[in-house]
């Protein structure tokens, strides 16, 4: 069994600074940490490939050489590159860290404005799905095209298993299925596909035992999971369930209601004759506290009437006063016959306790010449669908709010894509 020793340190051919190789024979290029020159790691003399006049050294969020256990595998951070795209004259840069394990291979952690992705190469062939929007399928998952851009390598540190070059430009296409992102990079000759999973920066900080906190997230990232997706889905589910329960409740209320007629009578009102107010005989209401419905039917014709009611408990003298205006007009014009208003009306009183009650009625009419005949029906325990409907409307508020949040998030996400809507 042979043991491979660590590759010994070397010195930069440009500035003489001490350097270290971490990626064994895989590294094709290595960057001097001092003068940032890119050296040929395959060349026995580590020939200088690129030299830079401006030496802006950076402190990397994930330091090179740091090891951590990520997804159950020990990885060492060996390379870093910043890549930049230009959209409508504005430059957007993101960072890519190269992770290495000599058995398990390479992996990437990428970061854009606090949004991290854990990226690996895709070995299966992504299939293009025919349809109106560009979509690809991998492992049965559909990814929607998000953005096409030309990425330029704008800064490099450490080692890479390919020949990095500052200024190198490559076409990148991103497809999303949050929390996953699928990217194709390459030329017409070769395309490399990779898949990233949206990752909480805190997990990376924990895995690599980094001090402090990961950078704050800003904005919505392409494959960031919609935080309102699950909440809104379960709220919609609850709403559907409650709607069914309400319907069941309403149906059973209709089936179980007594709707018992406790009083019925006809009256004649002749305006101008006294006494105008009348009192009904006492009627008995039984059972649990429940509703009472008063139904008034009139023979009004091109006239109105106003009924002042007092619903009085004969035992306690407690009275409930309310009024009802009823009007009915009809006629004929060039369009034909017309009617307005209604001859009938009803009032529902809720939660009326059992007891002995009577009604005091005082009518008043628009026309003094015409008599009004009216009937009054009093029903005990009637179902009022309005209450069910109001309850349903209240229940609809949380899912609607959640759905609005969810779609606002999706809108913000897609505003960053090639498919953004303009003019708002």
């Amino acid at each position, binding site marked *: *069994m*042979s*043991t*491979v*020793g*660590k590759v010994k340190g070397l010195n930069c051919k440009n500035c003489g600074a001490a350097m270290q190789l971490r990626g*064994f*024979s*895989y590294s*094709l290029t290595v960057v001097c940490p001092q003068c940032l020159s890119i050296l040929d790691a395959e060349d026995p003399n580590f020939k200088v490939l690129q030299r830079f006049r401006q030496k802006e050294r950076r402190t990397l969020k994930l330091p090179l050489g740091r090891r951590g256990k990520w997804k159950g595998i*020990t990885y060492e951070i060996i390379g870093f590159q910043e890549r930049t795209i230009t959209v409508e004259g504005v430059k957007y840069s993101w960072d890519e860290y190269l992770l290495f*394990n*000599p*058995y*398990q*291979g*390479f992996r990437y952690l990428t970061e854009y404005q606090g949004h991290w992705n854990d990226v690996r*190469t895709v*070995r*299966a*062939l*992504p*299939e293009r799905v025919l349809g109106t929007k560009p979509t690809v*399928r*991998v492992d049965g998952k559909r990814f929607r095209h998000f953005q096409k851009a030309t990425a330029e390598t704008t800064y490099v540190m450490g080692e890479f*298993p*390919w*020949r990095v070059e500052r200024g190198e430009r490559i076409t990148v296409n991103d497809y999303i299925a949050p929390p996953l992102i699928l990217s194709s990079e390459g030329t*017409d*000759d*070769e*395309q490399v596909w990779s898949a990233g999973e949206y990752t909480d920066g805190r997990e990376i900080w924990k895995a690599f035992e980094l001090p402090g906190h990961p950078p704050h997230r800003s904005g919505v990232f392409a494959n960031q999971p919609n935080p309102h997706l699950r909440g809104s889905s379960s709220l919609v589910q609850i709403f559907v369930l409650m709607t069914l329960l309400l319907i069941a409740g309403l149906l059973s209320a209709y089936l179980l209601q007594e709707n018992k007629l406790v009083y019925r009578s006809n009256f004649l009102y002749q305006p101008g004759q006294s006494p105008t107010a009348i009192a009904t005989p006492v009627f008995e209401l039984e059972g649990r506290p429940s509703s009472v419905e008063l139904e008034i039917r009139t023979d009004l014709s091109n006239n109105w009437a106003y009924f002042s009611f007092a619903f009085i408990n004969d035992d306690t003298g407690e009275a409930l006063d309310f009024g009802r205006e009823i009007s009915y007009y009809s006629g004929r014009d060039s369009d034909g016959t017309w009617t307005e208003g209604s001859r009938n009306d009803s009032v529902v009183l809720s939660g009326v306790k059992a007891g002995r009650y009577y009604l005091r009625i005082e009518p008043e009419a628009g026309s003094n010449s015409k008599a009004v005949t009216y009937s009054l029906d009093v029903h005990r325990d009637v179902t009022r669908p309005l209450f069910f409907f109001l309850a349903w409307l209240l229940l609809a508020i949380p899912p609607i709010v959640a759905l609005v949040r969810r779609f606002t998030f999706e809108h913000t996400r897609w505003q960053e894509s090639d498919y953004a809507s303009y003019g708002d």
Partner: protein
Amino acid sequence: MIVRHGVNLDLVGEVSDLREDASPVQIGSEGVFDGKAFVVVGRIQYEHDLGSWNEWHLLFNDGSGGWLADAQLEYAVSFLTKPMGPPPAAEHLFRGARFQWFGVLYEVTTITKANYRGVQGELPFEYWGKERILFVDLRSPDGRFATIDFSESPPLLFTGRAVEFDELRLKNLRQFEDWT
């Protein structure tokens, strides 16, 4: 010029011009593929313009052979297969071209020209040349892959699939200082 002998193995010994690389696999490594145990008995190292890769020759416990590719620690296992007809000619192979073998649809993803850099251990052939050979890699949507190897006429077809390192449960690997 390469002469192959089917399943006959010839000890080609160690060839000095093998490039020193960091493949964790070595002759004598053992593993499991699709429930069948194998041992690594030989190696071909190929090189092309952008680097090199290894094809490790596997001997399964049922006596059959196979290949474990290690290209920058991306692993794949494949077997020499005999399609009904000869594999397509080189001029019909371009990126995006599609072919079907044994009910699987493959698409050409990479076309590489490479040559033998070195060989080691037991291999199912005895001579090798250093001329550039055309390799055409194809992939299927479910992670299977195929390689058409133009080192012989008619060309050889290898089919197999991409594998994860952990899946092969490899033992007797090389050890790396600081990495255990």
